[in-house]
């Protein structure tokens, strides 16, 4: 399985409720999106399919009559005048009743449409650039319900004695120093966290977050340098922590959809902010304590 496939598998593994909303993808988050396809102007040239490196597109030998009949022909017309003519003639002739897509007789070239396989798409925009007929565009929406499908809610668990268990990804630079400082200052923060040192908060990969959850942790905390002080990019909007902030927001929305809302958090502290670091941890642990143990603990228990 490719990387995207593994990630989606992980999300399926940790989902405890069926997602119902199509998610907005934050601006800086790349790699997730939706392809909008207009069959009415498509010439079935397969240029998009050739361009897609992850085989997220395929030809479908169907004439998408419903789209043809509901298409509104723009003032300047389609680029392909031929399809435009076909559609306008069909619209004139349209009689009563519902319309369905029909198969292309086998052996006839020049007809067909494209199917987009949501979960394979890495939103690279290559197909959009390749399409000569402007039938495709990439939208910052992620169709989580389609990708994850139906989720079986794991049995609820009754845990009497429970202490939250939180994984904290700390960046090599500021956050780790802050954590050290907090220790040096003998500040109290809950013993419920285990820190994992990473070069930069931006280097935390979603699959690592999912893996932590999969193994039954109750929450994941990502900490980085103060915004604009990232050691890998500084105040560049594309610096590690800026990027990760958007990504974590995206994953938070995913978590909410799959029944893990509130269990992922990102925050920032400079090397000198030992106190702030202790606060961040305390607040997050308290939050988790309120939400309760990870529902996945139940799943793990059943499995083991």
């Amino acid at each position, binding site marked *: 399985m490719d990387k995207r496939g593994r990630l989606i598998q992980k999300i399926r593994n940790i989902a405890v409720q069926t997602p119902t909303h199509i998610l907005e993808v934050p601006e800086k988050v790349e790699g997730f999106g939706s392809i909008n396809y207009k069959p009415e102007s498509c010439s079935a040239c397969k240029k998009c399919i050739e361009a897609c490196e992850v085989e997220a597109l395929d030809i479908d030998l169907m*004439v998408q009559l419903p789209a043809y009949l509901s298409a509104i022909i723009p003032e300047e017309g389609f680029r392909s005048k031929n399809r435009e003519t076909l559609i306008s003639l069909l619209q004139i002739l349209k009689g009563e009743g519902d319309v369905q897509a029909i198969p292309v007789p086998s052996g006839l070239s020049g007809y067909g449409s494209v199917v987009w396989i949501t979960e394979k798409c890495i939103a690279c925009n290559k197909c959009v650039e390749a399409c000569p007929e402007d039938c495709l565009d990439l939208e910052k929406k992620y169709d989580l319900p389609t990708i994850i499908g139906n989720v079986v809610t794991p049995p609820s668990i009754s845990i009497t004695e429970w202490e939250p268990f939180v994984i904290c990804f700390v960046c090599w630079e500021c956050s780790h120093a802050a954590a050290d400082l907090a220790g040096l200052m003998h500040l109290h923060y809950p013993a419920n966290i285990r820190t994992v040192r990473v070069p930069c908060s931006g280097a935390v990969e979603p699959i690592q977050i999912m893996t932590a959850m999969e193994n039954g942790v109750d929450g994941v905390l990502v900490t980085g340098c103060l915004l604009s002080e990232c050691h890998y990019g500084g105040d560049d909007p594309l610096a590690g922590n800026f990027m990760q902030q958007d990504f974590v927001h995206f994953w938070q929305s995913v978590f909410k959809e799959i029944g893990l809302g509130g269990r992922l958090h990102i925050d920032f502290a400079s090397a000198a902010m030992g106190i702030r670091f202790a606060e961040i941890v305390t607040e997050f642990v308290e939050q988790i304590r309120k939400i309760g143990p990870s529902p996945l603990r139940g799943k793990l228990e059943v499995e083991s």
Partner: protein
Amino acid sequence: MKKLFLCTCNGTLNKLLDFTRIGKEAKAIYDVVEVADNLCLEEGLAELEKGLSGDDRLVIGACSSQIIGVPMKQRIKNDLVAFVPLREQVGWVHLEEGESATNKAIVLLSDAAVQLDYMESQAEFTENMVGRVLVIGGGIAGLKAASDLHRLGVEVTLLEPFKLDKHHYLQTSVFMSDADTLRSEIQEIQKTILDVERIRGEIREVRGQLGSYEVTINGAKDGSMTQEFGAIIIASGNQQSLPSSAKKMRYGKSERVVTLDSLISNSKKKRAKDRSTILVAVDFDAPMSSVEGSHLLRTTRDLAARGNTIIVVYSDIQTEDENLYREARDSGVIFIRGRVTRIKENDKGLSCRIENTLESMQRDVIADRVAIPRLIGPTIETTQIAEKLGVECDDSGFIRTRYSKMKPVQTSRRGIFVAGGAKMPMSLSDAMASAQNAVLEAFKIVRSPLVRSGWIPVIDDEECDVCKACLDACPNDALRLMDDRIVHIPAHCEFCGICVSACPTRAIEFQSHSKESWFARFEAIAATHKRLEGKKPFSLVFACSECANASIDQAGFVGKQYGTGSYVIQFPCAGMVSPIEILKGLVVGANRVIVAHCPPGGCHHQTGDHLSELVVSLTRDMLREIGQNPDRVRATYMMAAMPDKMQKEVPVRG
């Protein structure tokens, strides 16, 4: 100026149609309207010539273009001419309909006037042809082709692939005729081609087109060389192989199991003891050509004549000569329809179980020998050569020809021909004949520059998505992909317009036949019909210019009457019709649209009959889906031998 010339056909047509009304109506759309009595005779032609200046656009309202078109072409230089067959498609087929027939004439003339508006001069091109021909294969067909070309004064290169030497041909050609005849035939021909260039080698690469194929050959001696040829003849012959069932027949395991040919060819030295029982096990699944069948019958007949008992177990035998079968039976050959399912060897011989598929019975036979006829297939080289040359093969690997009757030596690529056994197993005389045929075709190409004219498809790079649908659809390899754009090769083009309907973006338009021109014509027909005939329904018949048009003309000659609301529109090939033209026909108000093509398999452009059926089937599906009656659109075939087809499609009223 737009001029209309009407002909009364020696004072007959004006009795069937109201020429006064036609003339009056026509004056509104033509600048000049003339009426002649015998447009096809000298006086008429002279009058026509006198009345024309070079840049006039002209409509001839007379008999079929097949008739009047011929003398006209010789006399008149104007190339913007449209024909309205008032006689065959109106006067003679609507004898009972008086006024309505006249109305139809007027409708057709209004269509022709619009047709003129969109007509362009035909493209003309001259291409110089390389004078040399490449013949591949030095067997009987190849030698014959080289020899004939040489005799015609054409420069020839004879390429002999490494593995196909004289021995190969003599060995594998037993079925063509007896070895002695073959050997002497080959020797005779060899003498005639002493000064022909002969190379031993294999083809590495082929580029170019009819008239200038650039061929790179890896030679045995001088390394590789590249040379240009105007045409290529493939004569890579046959080879024989054991059928896959041979092993099951214990071939190679038992000395008593041999090939059928070995019983004959070894006859002089270690001939099978006569008076033995020989079971001939024909492979049950492999189809047998008539040449193989004849060879089988000849061989078994001879073996039986020597006193052997011959049992032939077969599924199907074809032969070129029915007598052979009789002769074989008369010599005592026993034929059992079925298959050999098991062979066991014991000290008495071979115990063979035969399943008689006709009577569904089993029986065991003890034979001294089992003989297996070898299968004849193309040489392995044939496949390689075909691949390098870009020509198609059939399922058995033989070179595919375009249509066996009309162009028996034409491969799927123009300028490349096939001679002899590379096409199918052939007898000696057939192989020689096919070589002659290929020589003739090649000679026609290389003897003079190619001068052609016609309306051609024009590709608009801006509109093209490079989807390559047209490449797949073109039956003549006349479109190619070069530097990521589609290039048209006029020398290969047959002017069929199939590429137009294949193109999803209509980046290809056919000269004089653009989408706009069809639409304008349909609109003119509908408007004029409505004005003259009111609400009376009408049909549009999209007829291919070959068989379908001939059938419609023929209806006129034999007087098969049909309804008047029927307007025939000629397409170069029915394969050019796309759903758009059909739907437009319905939109302008036609009650029915009939797409008429050549009979199945008889399309002059190979695929037009089939493609038009597919286009119509898609259009019908679309109509059904959008709530319209799909039966308003039909595809059908027509041919000159069936003049009543129009009557079936457009019945007489009442």
